[in-house]
C-alpha cells in the first residue's frame, strides 16, 4: 500500500475518530465530551465515505450529529447544573473497567489478525455507483421492506414512550 494523499486523509480520519473517542471517554467535563463525540461521529462518517457509502455517511451526519448529539446536549442541559458538569471517576473502577476493556481489545485484535478471510482485502479504489437509489430499492421493494416497516413501528413506540416517560406531570 503506497502512501498517497488518500491514505494520508484516511489515517487522518482514523486518528481523529480514535483520538476524539478517547477524549469522550476520559474528559471530565461532560459538555466537552459531547463535543468530542461530535468529532468522533464526523470521523466515522468520513470513514463511511472512504467505504464509498455515501448515503450512509449522510445519514450518519444528519441523524447522529443532527439528532442524537443535539438530544444528548439537551439532556446535559436539563440534568446538569454547573457543578454536575464534572464526571466522577473512581480509580478502582477505572482499573477494573480498563482491564476488561483491554482484554476485550486484545481478543478482538487477535481475531482480526488471525482471520484469513479478512486478510489482504485491500480497497482497490474502484469507483462504485452511488448507493442512494439502490438503498431505496432495497428498502421499499427488497428484502428490507419488513425491517423498514418494523423500525417505523419501533420509532413510533419510542416516540410515545419517550414522551410519556419524560413528561413532567400528567394532564387531566
Amino acid at each position, binding site marked *: 500500500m503506497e502512501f498517497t494523499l488518500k491514505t494520508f486523509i484516511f489515517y487522518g480520519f482514523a486518528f481523529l475518530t480514535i483520538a476524539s473517542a478517547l477524549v469522550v471517554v476520559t474528559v471530565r467535563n461532560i459538555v466537552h465530551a459531547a463535543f468530542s463525540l461530535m468529532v468522533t461521529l464526523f470521523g466515522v462518517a468520513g470513514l463511511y465515505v472512504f467505504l464509498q457509502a455515501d448515503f450512509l455517511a449522510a445519514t450518519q451526519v444528519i441523524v447522529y450529529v443532527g439528532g442524537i448529539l443535539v438530544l444528548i446536549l439537551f439532556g446535559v442541559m436539563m440534568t446538569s447544573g454547573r457543578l454536575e458538569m464534572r464526571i466522577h471517576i473512581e480509580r478502582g*473502577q477505572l482499573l*477494573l473497567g480498563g482491564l476488561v476493556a483491554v482484554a476485550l481489545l486484545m481478543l478482538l485484535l487477535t481475531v482480526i489478525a488471525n482471520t484469513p478471510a479478512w486478510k489482504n482485502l485491500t480497497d482497490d479504489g474502484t469507483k462504485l455507483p452511488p448507493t442512494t437509489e439502490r438503498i431505496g430499492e432495497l428498502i421499499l421493494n427488497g428484502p428490507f421492506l419488513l425491517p423498514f416497516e418494523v423500525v417505523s413501528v419501533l420509532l413510533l413506540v419510542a416516540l410515545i414512550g419517550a414522551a410519556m416517560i419524560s413528561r413532567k406531570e400528567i394532564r387531566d
Partner: protein
Amino acid sequence: MVVPLISLILLCPLAAFAIFGLLGLAKRSFPRQDYLSTAAMLVGFVCSLLLLREVVPNPETHTVKWISLGSITFSMGFYLDSVTAIMLLVVTLVSSLVHIFSIGYMHGDPRYPRFFAFLSLFSFSMLFLVVSDNLLGIYIGWELVGLCSYLLIGFWFEKDSAANACKKAFLTTRVGDVGMFIGMMMLFTKFKTLSLYGEGGIFTLAASLNTGDMVWLSIAGVLIFCGAVGKSAQVPLHTWLPDAMEGPTPVSALIHAATMVAAGVYLTARMFPILTETSSLVIAYIGGITAIVAATIAIVRFDIKRVLAYSTVSQLGYMMLGIGVGSYVAGLFHLTTHAFFKALLFLGSGSVIHAFHAMHAHAHDDEHDHAHEDHDTHEHAHGDDDAHGHDHEHGDHDLVHAHGSEIPPDQDMRNMGGLRHKMPITFVTMLIATLSISGVPFVFSGFWSKDAILGGVLERAMEWNSVHHYLLFGMALLAAGITAFYMFRLIFMTFFGEPRNQEMHNMAHESPLSMTVPLLILAVLSFPVVNKFWFNADYVKPPEQPHLYAPQHAHVSPDSKTEGKGFALSLFGVSEAVAAEEAGHDTHVDGEHHGHSPAHDIAMVLSICVAGLGILLSWLFYHRRTLSAESVANSFRPLYNLFWHKYYFDEFYDGVLVALTVWKARLFAQFDGSVVDGIVNGVGRLTRDFLAVFVGFFDNRVVDGIVNRVAEVTWAVGGRIRRIQTGAIQTYLFVVLAGIVLLILIFRAL
C-alpha cells in the same frame, strides 16, 4: 388323648387371663378372678395327672406349621416325654397351690384380680415353655415367663424398689436371652430348623456332625446356656433374683423358686444331646461357682426372703452342675424336689410375713389400699437401727439402691424368733422343707436328689480322672454344708429362741386355712415316698450325648460313661431303666448291671457328714449360742464383708457406672440433672448414662450438624450472591463484560 389334654392345660390359664384382659379393656373387672384362675390351674393339674398316665416310654410329638417360608418351616408343637409330663405336673401343682395360698395372702390388695390374672398368664407361659418341642417355642415361652416375672415383681410398683427390681430382672435376663438367641441363630443357620426332635430336628442332624464342628457346637451350646444363666440366675447374671423378692411372696414361691428359674435347668437338660465336653464343663463350672457363691452370701442375710432367694440361686447352681457333669436325671430330679421344698419354704416365709404384715396393717389402721406403701415408711425408720454400720458406706451415695440392704421389718429375721408356738403349722412344714434342702438323710427327698448330683460329679471325676470334676465335687460338697448351715440359721432365728420384737410377736398368728393347706400339701411332697408316685423314673432317660467325649487321659473308655444313678436313684428305679436302655443300645456297658458305682456311696457319706456339720454349727451359733456369730464375723471380717456385699457384684456393676457417671457429669453437665435421678441398674445404666448420652449428643451435633452446615453454606452463598447485586448498574455491566471475557477465555482454553 394327649393333644386335647395338653391343649386344655395350656388354654385354661390363658382363658383366665384373656377374660381379665378383655374385661379390662372394657374398664370392668371380673369379681372372682381368684376363683377363676385357681380353677383353671386345678383343671390343668388334673389334666397333668391324667397325662402322666398317658405317657408311654416313647415320646410323642405333635406339631403344627407356624410359619412357612418356602423351603423353611417353623413349627410349633408339643414334645411329650416323661420329663415333660413331670414338669407339667410340678408346674400345675405348685401353681395351683400358690393360687390357693394367694387367695389368703393377697386378700384385700387393691389389684387383687390382676394378681391372679398375671399368675394365670405366667402358668400358661411356663407350661408352653415346658411342652414346646422346638427352640422357638421354648424361646417364646421363655420370654413370656420373663414378662410375667416382670409384671409380678413389679406388682407393687408404687414401691421404687419393686419398680427397680422388676426392670432389673427383665433386663438382666434379657442379656442372657440375647445370648440364647444368638445360639439359636447359629443352630438355625447350620440346620435350617429350630425343631429339636424328629428326623429333621436339630438333635438328629447334630448327631452326624463330625469333630471339626465341635468348637462351633460348643459355642452354640454355651450361648444357649446363656439364656439359662440369665433365667436361672447363675453367676454372673444372678443379681436380679434376690432383688426380685420385692414381689409378693407367692410370686417368689412360684416363679422365683419353683418354676421359672428352673426353666433354665430344664432348657439345659433339653439341650443335653448337643452339649459337648467343653460346653458341659462350662455349664458345670458356672453351676458349681453359683452354688457356692450364693450359699456363702446367704449365710449373712437377715431378710428371710433373701436368704431363700440366695438359697434358690445356690440350688439352681447345683442342678446346673448336675446337668453339666452329665447327671441328667439327677439334675432334673433335684429340680422337682427343689420345686416343692423351695415353694414350701417361700410360702412358709410368706405365711410368716403375712402374720407380721397383718399386724402392721392393724397397728397403723391403714386401709388395705395403701397397705403396701407402709414398706417405704418403715424402711427409713428402720434404717437407723441397722446394726451394720458399714452399710452406710455405700448407702450414702444416691446411685446404689435396693440391693437388699434395706430390709422390710416384716421380713427381717432379727425381728422374729420363737414363732413356733404362734404358728405351728408353718413351723412344722418349714422345718420339713429345711430338713429336705439340708440333705438330712433318707427320709427327705432333698437328700436323695442332692446326693444324686454329688455322686454324679464324683463319678465323672473318677471316671475321667479329671481335676476339674474333683474341684467341682469339692465345691458342691462345701455348698451342701453351707446350705445346711444357713437354712438352719433361718429356722433357728425365726422359730426358736425368744421373740426379739415382742410387739410384733404378740400380734403374730397362724395363717388362714387357704394358706396352711398348701403348706401341708407341699410338706407331704417333701417326702421321697410320695415322690416315687410321680417321678416315674422308669421313663426318665437321659438322652445320648453324641459329642461328649471323655478326655484322652480318662482311664475309662467313653463307652463306660455312666449316668448318675447311685443308690439314690436306684431307689426310684432309675438304674434299671437306664440299664435296660443302655443294654438295648449296646453302647454303654458298665457296672450298672450289677449295682452302682462306688462314687455314689462315697458321695453319700460325705454329704451326710457335711450336712450334719452344717446343722451342728448352726445349732451352736444360733440356738445354743455357744459360738458367737458376731465374733466369728469379726475375726473373718474381710470374708464377712465379701459375703455381706454379695461379692460386690452389684457394687461392681454400679461402681463402673458411677465412675462413668462422674466422668460424664463433667463432660455433659447440662444433662446431669435430668439423667441421674432415674436409676437403672446394671448394664442398663451403663448404656444410658454414657453411651446413650453420647449417641444422642452425636445425633444432634454431628449428623444434624453436617446437614445444618451444608444448609448454612448454601445460605451463605446465597447471601454472597446477593451482595454482588449491589444495585449499582455499572457493577452489573462489569459482571456482564467480565463474564463475556471469561467465557471466551475459558472456552478458548478448552
